[in-house]
C-alpha cells in the first residue's frame, strides 16, 4: 500500500478519498512541519500533499527516493522546484480555477474596504469612538464610475473586470500578453502600457504570478506614477510589491491607501511599519478562504494525488511534460 504524507489538516472529505488509496499520515499541527521533520516524514512516502509554506526542492526529493507525486494545494507553486521534479519524472499537481471567483471577491472586498475606510470606521465603532454623525467625517472615495487598472489579465483579472462593470467602472489593463480583441470587447477592458495604467487609474489591482520578472513589479517609480488618490490592491503574492517603497508611499500620501491579502515576508512581522498605518488594510492571506472553495481545493488536490499514485495522468498538472515518453 502506498504511503502518503499530508502536510496539514485539510477537509475530511479529501482525507477520506486519500485514505482509500494508501496509508496516510496527516501533520496535525497548525504550524508547518520543521524542515528536518518534513525530510524525515517523506523518507518512505510515495505521495506528498504540500502547501505554499513547505519547501519542496532537490534536497527533499533526494530524501524521498520513492516519491511518485507531489500535490500542491494552491494555485501557485513557487515553493516547489518544478524543473527538479520534472527531471525525476515526478508529476506536480496544483489547484487552478477553483479559487478564481473567490479570490476576485476578496480582491474586490479589499478594494471597497480601503476606498470606504471600512476597517478604520469599524474600529472606531468597536472602540467606542463613534460619538456623532458629521458630514465631513471618514470621507472615502467613490468606487462607482472610477477607473480600475488591472495588472495581469489572467483568470482572476477577468473576474475582477466582470465585477467592476457592475460599478460602472472604466477598466484599463496591462499584461505581457494582450488579450484577443473579442475578449477585450466582451469584458470591456482596455489595453494600455504599464505606466499609463498606473497614471490613469483610481484603483490598481495586481493579479500576476510571482516570477523573477514580477518581483517588485510595484516599486518607488511605479508608486510615484500613481495618482495621489490611488488605492493599490494586492491579492496576488507579497513580493510583487516592494514593501519599503509601499510604506513610504502610504506614509507620505504618494498614494492614498492600500489593501493587501499578501505580504513580504509572510506572516508580516508584528513590528513591520506597514501594520501601523491606518490607510493600509492587511488580511492574513485569506483570499481563497471560503468553506466551499477550500473544500474544492482539498478534493482537487486529493484527486491529483491519487492519480499520481496510480500512475494515471492528473487533470491539473504543472509539468505535463513528465507524461511524454
Amino acid at each position, binding site marked *: 500500500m502506498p504511503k502518503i504524507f499530508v502536510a496539514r489538516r485539510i477537509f475530511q472529505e479529501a482525507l477520506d478519498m486519500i485514505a482509500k488509496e494508501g496509508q496516510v499520515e496527516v501533520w496535525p499541527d497548525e504550524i508547518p512541519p520543521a524542515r528536518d521533520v518534513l525530510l524525515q516524514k517523506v523518507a518512505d512516502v510515495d505521495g506528498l500533499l504540500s502547501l505554499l509554506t513547505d519547501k519542496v526542492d532537490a534536497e527533499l526529493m533526494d530524501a524521498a527516493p520513492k516519491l511518485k507525486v507531489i500535490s500542491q494545494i494552491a494555485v501557485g507553486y513557487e515553493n516547489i522546484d518544478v524543473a527538479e521534479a520534472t527531471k525525476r519524472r515526478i508529476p506536480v499537481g496544483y489547484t487552478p480555477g477553483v479559487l478564481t471567483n473567490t479570490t476576485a*471577491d476578496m480582491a474586490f*472586498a479589499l478594494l471597497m474596504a480601503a476606498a470606504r475606510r471600512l476597517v478604520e470606521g*469599524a474600529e472606531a465603532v468597536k472602540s*467606542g469612538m463613534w460619538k456623532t454623525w458629521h*458630514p465631513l467625517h471618514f470621507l472615502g472615495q*467613490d468606487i462607482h464610475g472610477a477607473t480600475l487598472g488591472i495588472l495581469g489579465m489572467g483568470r482572476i483579472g477577468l473576474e475582477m473586470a466582470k465585477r467592476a462593470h*457592475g460599478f460602472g467602472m472604466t477598466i484599463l489593463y496591462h499584461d505581457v500578453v494582450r488579450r484577443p480583441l473579442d475578449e477585450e470587447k466582451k469584458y470591456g477592458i482596455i489595453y494600455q502600457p504599464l505606466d499609463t495604467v498606473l497614471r490613469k487609474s483610481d484603483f490598481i489591482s495586481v493579479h500576476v504570478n510571482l516570477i523573477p520578472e514580477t518581483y517588485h513589479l510595484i516599486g518607488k517609480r511605479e508608486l510615484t506614477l500613481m495618482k495621489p488618490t490611488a488605492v493599490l490592491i494586492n491579492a496576488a503574492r507579497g513580493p510583487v510589491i516592494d514593501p519599503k517603497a509601499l510604506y513610504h508611499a502610504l506614509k507620505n500620501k504618494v498614494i492614498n491607501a492600500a489593501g493587501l491579502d499578501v505580504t513580504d515576508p509572510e*506572516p508580516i512581522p508584528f513590528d513591520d511599519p506597514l*501594520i501601523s498605518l491606518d490607510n493600509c*488594510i492587511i488580511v492574513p492571506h485569506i483570499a481563497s478562504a471560503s468553506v466551499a472553495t477550500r473544500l474544492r481545493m482539498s478534493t482537487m488536490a486529493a484527486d491529483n494525488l491519487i492519480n499520481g499514485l496510480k500512475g494515471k495522468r492528473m487533470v491539473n498538472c504543472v509539468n505535463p511534460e513528465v507524461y511524454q515518453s
Partner: protein
Amino acid sequence: MPVARPKAFITRLLPQEALDIVSCEADLEVWPNKYPPPPQILRQKVFEVEGILTNIMDRVDQALLDAAPRLRVVSQLAAGLDNIDLAAATNRHIPVGYTPGVVSAVTADHTFALLLAAAHRVSESERWLRKGKWEIAFHPLFWLGSEVHHSRLGIVGMGKIGMEVAKRARGFDMDILYHSRTPKPEAEATYSAIYTDFSTLLESSDFVTLHVPLTSETRHLIGKEELRIMKPTAILVNTARGPVVDPQALHQALNKGWIAGAALDVTDPEPILPDDPLLTLENLVVTPHLGSATVTTRKRMAILAAQNLVAGLKDERLPSCANFEAYTEYEGK
C-alpha cells in the same frame, strides 16, 4: 431700495462650495462644533432664521417648527427624513428639501463593501492581524468565510438604492430575489431579479440587504421571527436605518447562530452606545453611518442641499423637494 438679506442656519460644517452658494443669497450662521447643536440652542437659532439646513442628527418636530415663526424652508442633507416631522412642515407650508438620487450609487457601493467584508471576515481578520496574531503563514482551514459569487441575494425594498445594489450583484453572478411594496418590472428585466413574498426571500437568501425608508411599518421589520427563518449561513446587511432591525433580536440571532453574520452601517440608537452588547460579537461589523461618506458625494449632497435652501429662501420651487404638497395652497391661488 435695499432688501434685507434672509438669514439661514446650517447645523454642521459643510464643504466650502456649498457654503458659498448659500452666502451669495443669505446671511448664514454655521454651527462650528462636531457635535449637533443641543435642542434648546437649535430652538433659539431657528427663531430668527428663514431657512435651516439639517441632517439626520437634528430633530425637526412640531415644537421646533413652532419656535420658528419666519421659517420658509428646511433643507435636509440626506435621502432619509425620519428626523423630520414632514406632515407638520407641510401643514405650515414649509417645503422640505432632501438629497435622494445623489446618494444611491454611493450607498450601494457601501452596501457591497459591507457585504463582502462580512462574507470574507475582512474587519475581523484585519484587527486580529494588527494585534500581532498572524503567526502561521497559511492554513487551509483558517478564516473560512462565505462565498459571495454565485450566491443568492435578497433585496428588501427595490427603490433607487435597491436597483443599484442589484446592478452590482450581477457582476458577482448572484441570483437576485426582491421584495417591495410593488413589483418592479425594470429590476426583473434588467437584473433578472425575481419578486417573492417577504418570508420566501428571508428563507432562501444567502445575503439579505435592507433598502427601505424608516416608517411605522418598517420599524423592526427584521425581528426575532424574521431572523429565525433566515438560513443559518445567511448574512444580514443594513445600510438603511437602524430601527428597521430589532437590535435585541439581532444580538440573539448572532449569538445563537440563527444567522452567520451581520454588517450594519446604521444602528438603534445612533451612535450605538459603547457598551452595547452587539459590539462584543465577532460576527458583526458596524461602520459609523458612512453610506454616503465619500468626498465627491458629500460635496454633491451639500451643493444640492444648499441649492434647496436658497430656492426656499427665494420662494422658488426646491430642485429636490420631499413635500410638494406644501405648495398647493399657493398654486391654488
